[in-house]
C-alpha cells in the first residue's frame, strides 16, 4: 500500500501541476465552460422554435393566453409589456378557469394569469405572484414564457443588461449571422427568457408561481435540450484535446520536458499525470454543463448518478489520452492544436451524435453514419449519456459503452507512451 501511494505520488504531482496551469488559462476556461453553454442554449432554443414553427402556424412565436383579472395599473403594464414581445402571440382571455381548460387541451403553450387585486397587493407591499400555466408537452417553451413573464413583471435593470449582453454575444459570435432578423430577435428573447426562468427558480420568494397543467395523455414532453446537451458536452470535451497536445509541445519546446526526463519519473507517470488531470477537467466540465442544463433548460439527467459519473470518467480518460496522443504524433504545437480543433469540430458530426432533423441523435437511425460512429469515441460517449439520461439503458448496456470508451483510451495511451521520446 505504501509502495503504491509512493508510486502514485509523482503522477499526482504532475496532475496537480497540470491543473494549476490549466485553471490559470482564462481563454481555455472560456472555451471549455462558457462557449458550450452559450452554444447549447442558443442552438437548442432556435431549434426548438424552428421545430415548433414546423408544426405550428406562425414561425418563431410562442402562443400564450394572457388573463388579466387585475383591474389596476400594474396588471395592465405587465400585459402590455408581454404584448410588445414579438415572440409571444397573445390571446387575451377573461378568466383563469377558461385558460386552464384550454391549456389542458393543448391549445397554447402557456397562460400568464395576472391575479385579481395584483396592483393593490403591490401598492400595499404584500406578496403577490403571477401565475404561469404551462402545457407539459411544451415545457421548454413554457420555461421561456415563465422567464418572459418574470421579465415583464419585475424592475428592468438587470434584465435590461441581460438582454443587452445576449444581443452583444449573438452579434459577436456570428452564430445567427445568416438568420433573418425576426429569428435573431426570437432567439434573443428566448435566451433571456430561459435565463430569467433560472433566476426565478433561484429566488426564495419567486414572483411567479408555475403550474404545469393539462392532460397527461398528450405524450412525452419533448425537450430538445435532452438531445443537444449530451452531444455538446461530448463535443466540447474534445476541445480540450488540442490544448493537451499543445501543452505537450510547449513542455518539450520550453525544456521543462528535459527536467521531467532527467528526473526518476517513469515514462508511464509522465503520460499518466496529465491523463489524470485532464480526465478531471472533463468531469468538471461535464458536471458544470449538465448542472446548468438541468437548472436552466430542464435537461433530464435520468436517475443514475453512478451511470453519469461512469460515462463522464470514461469520456474524460478518452479525451485525455486522445490529446496526449495528438501531442506525441504531431510535430509542432500548432499542428496539435489544429488537429485537435479539427477533430473537435468534425468528429461529432460524422459520428452522428447530433440530431439531423428529428429529436434523436443521427446514429440511432442506423445506416452509414451509425457504422462510422461505431469507430469514433464520441458516439459511445453520447450513447452512454443517452442510455443513462433516458433511462433506456441498463447497467450492462451503459458499461458496454464505458468499456468501449476505455478501449479507445487504452489504444491512445499505448500509442502516446510508446512513442514518447525526446529527440
Amino acid at each position, binding site marked *: 500500500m505504501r509502495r503504491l501511494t509512493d508510486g502514485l505520488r509523482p503522477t499526482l504531482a504532475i496532475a496537480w501541476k497540470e491543473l494549476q496551469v490549466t485553471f*490559470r488559462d482564462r481563454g481555455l476556461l472560456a472555451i471549455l465552460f462558457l462557449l458550450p453553454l452559450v452554444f447549447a442554449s442558443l442552438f437548442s432554443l432556435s431549434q426548438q422554435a424552428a421545430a415548433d414553427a414546423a408544426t405550428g402556424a406562425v414561425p418563431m412565436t410562442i402562443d400564450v393566453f394572457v388573463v388579466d383579472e387585475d383591474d389596476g395599473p400594474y396588471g395592465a403594464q405587465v400585459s402590455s409589456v408581454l404584448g410588445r414581445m414579438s415572440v409571444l402571440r397573445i390571446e387575451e382571455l377573461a378568466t383563469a378557469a377558461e385558460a386552464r381548460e384550454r391549456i389542458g387541451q393543448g391549445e397554447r403553450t402557456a397562460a400568464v394569469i395576472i391575479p385579481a387585486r395584483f396592483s393593490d397587493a403591490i401598492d400595499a407591499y404584500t406578496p403577490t405572484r403571477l401565475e404561469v400555466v404551462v402545457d407539459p408537452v411544451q415545457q421548454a417553451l413554457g420555461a421561456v414564457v415563465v422567464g418572459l413573464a418574470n421579465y415583464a413583471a419585475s424592475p428592468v435593470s438587470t434584465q435590461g443588461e441581460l438582454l443587452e449582453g445576449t444581443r452583444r454575444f449573438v452579434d459577436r459570435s456570428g452564430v445567427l449571422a445568416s438568420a433573418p432578423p425576426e429569428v435573431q430577435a426570437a432567439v434573443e428573447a428566448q435566451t433571456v427568457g430561459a435565463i430569467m426562468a433560472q433566476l426565478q427558480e433561484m429566488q426564495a420568494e419567486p414572483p411567479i408561481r408555475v403550474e404545469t397543467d393539462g392532460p397527461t395523455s398528450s405524450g412525452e414532453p419533448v425537450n430538445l435540450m435532452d438531445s443537444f446537451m449530451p452531444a455538446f458536452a461530448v463535443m466540447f470535451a474534445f476541445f480540450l484535446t488540442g490544448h493537451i497536445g499543445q501543452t505537450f509541445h510547449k513542455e518539450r519546446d520550453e525544456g521543462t520536458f528535459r527536467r*521531467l526526463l532527467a528526473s526518476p519519473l517513469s515514462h508511464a507517470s509522465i503520460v499518466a499525470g496529465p491523463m489524470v488531470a485532464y480526465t478531471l477537467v472533463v468531469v468538471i466540465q461535464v458536471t458544470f454543463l449538465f448542472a446548468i442544463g438541468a437548472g436552466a433548460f430542464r435537461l433530464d439527467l435520468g436517475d443514475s448518478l453512478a451511470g453519469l459519473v461512469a460515462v463522464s470518467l470514461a469520456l474524460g480518460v478518452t479525451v485525455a489520452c486522445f490529446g496526449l496522443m495528438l501531442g506525441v504524433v504531431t510535430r509542432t504545437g500548432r499542428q496539435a492544436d489544429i488537429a485537435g480543433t479539427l477533430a473537435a469540430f468534425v468528429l461529432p458530426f460524422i459520428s452522428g451524435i447530433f440530431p439531423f432533423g428529428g429529436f434523436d441523435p443521427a446514429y440511432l437511425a442506423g445506416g452509414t453514419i451509425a457504422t462510422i460512429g461505431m469507430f469514433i469515441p464520441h458516439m459511445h460517449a453520447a450513447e452512454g449519456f443517452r442510455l443513462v439520461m433516458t433511462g433506456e439503458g441498463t447497467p450492462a448496456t451503459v458499461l458496454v459503452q464505458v468499456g468501449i470508451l476505455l478501449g479507445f483510451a487504452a489504444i491512445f495511451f499505448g500509442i502516446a507512451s510508446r512513442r514518447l521520446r525526446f529527440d
Partner: protein
Amino acid sequence: MPAILEADGLVKKYGEHVAVDDISFAVEEGEVFGLLGPNGAGKTTTISMLTGVLEPTAGTARIGGHDLRTEPTEVKRINGLVPQDLALYPTLSARANLQFFGRIYGLKGRDLRERVDDVLEVVALTERANEPIEKYSGGMKRRVNIAAGLVHQPRLLFLDEPTVGVDPQSRNHIFESVMKLNRERRMSIIYTSHYMEEVELLCTRAAIVDEGRIIALDTIRNLIARLGGGVIQMGLERLDDEMLAAMRALPAVTAVTIVTPQPAATAVAAAAAAAVTGEAAVAGEDRPTDAKPAGPVVKIETRRSQDALVQVVGYLNERDVGFTSIEIFEPNLESVFLHLTGKKLRE
C-alpha cells in the same frame, strides 16, 4: 578522490550527423569541471545523455557508481540538471514550480517545504517567490531555473550555460551561488559556458570540445601553459610564401599559419574597399574562418605577443604591406581555444 562520473565512449548520432563522437572523461567528487566548446560542439547533447534525457547511440557512463544504462533511476537521483533554456512553467509562481520539481523527485510534506525555502534563499528570491514567473526579469528567471535543479539536493549538478543572457548583477549572484554550493555542500558540478573568465575562475579542470570530440582535457593552468605566449591574428593586404617564411623567422614568433588564404582577385579588391571604409575592423571581430570578402588572415603564435607584434609590424612596413585587422589574444582559455580549434568561442 573517487570519480563521481566516468563517461565512456559516448556517441550520439542524429541520422548521418554525429553530434557527439566518442567522448570519454571522468569528473572527481567535489570537482567543478568545465565543458567548453563553440556553438554546436555537442556540449548540451553530452549533458543530455549523461542526465538520461537522451539515449546514447553508443557508450555509457557510471555516475556515483551506477551504470547509466542499467540503473537509470539511481543515476537520475544523483543528477541535477539546469537546462540551457529556461525550463519552467511561466504562469506558475517560483514556489509552485520548485514544489513541483521537488515532488517529482519524491519529496513531500515538511521536507519539501524546507527544501524549497532553502533553494529560494540560495538564489535570493524568497521575497518574490509567490509571483508568477512570467513577471520576473530575465536574470530572476535564470535564478529560478537554477534553483529548480537544486531542490532535490543532487550530488552532481549539470549547469548548461547558466549565465547566458544575464545582466552582470544576476550573473555575479549565480556565480557566487555555484561556488558556494561546491564549497559548502561539496556538490560536484559540470559547467558549460561561453564565458572563459567564468570557467577560469570556477573550474579546476576543463575539457575542450569541438565537433563532438574532446580535443583537450586538463587543468586550466596546464591548458593555458600549453600555448606559451599569446596569439596574434592579423588580416593582411596580401600574402606570399616569402612573407610567410620571413615572419616565421622572426625571433619572437614560434609559428605562423594561414587562417584564410589569399582570396581571388575580385575578393581582394572588395577587401581593400572594405578596409578603406573601416568595415574590415568589424569583420575582424567576427569568426575569422567565415569567408568574408577580406584579405588573407594569418595566425601568429608567439613567445611574447608584444615583442612579436613589434617585429611583425616592422617587417610589414619594410615590405610595404598594409594590414586590415589585428587581434591579440593574450594567453588565456580563449586563446587556447582559438589555438586548438581555429574558432572563437562566441560568435
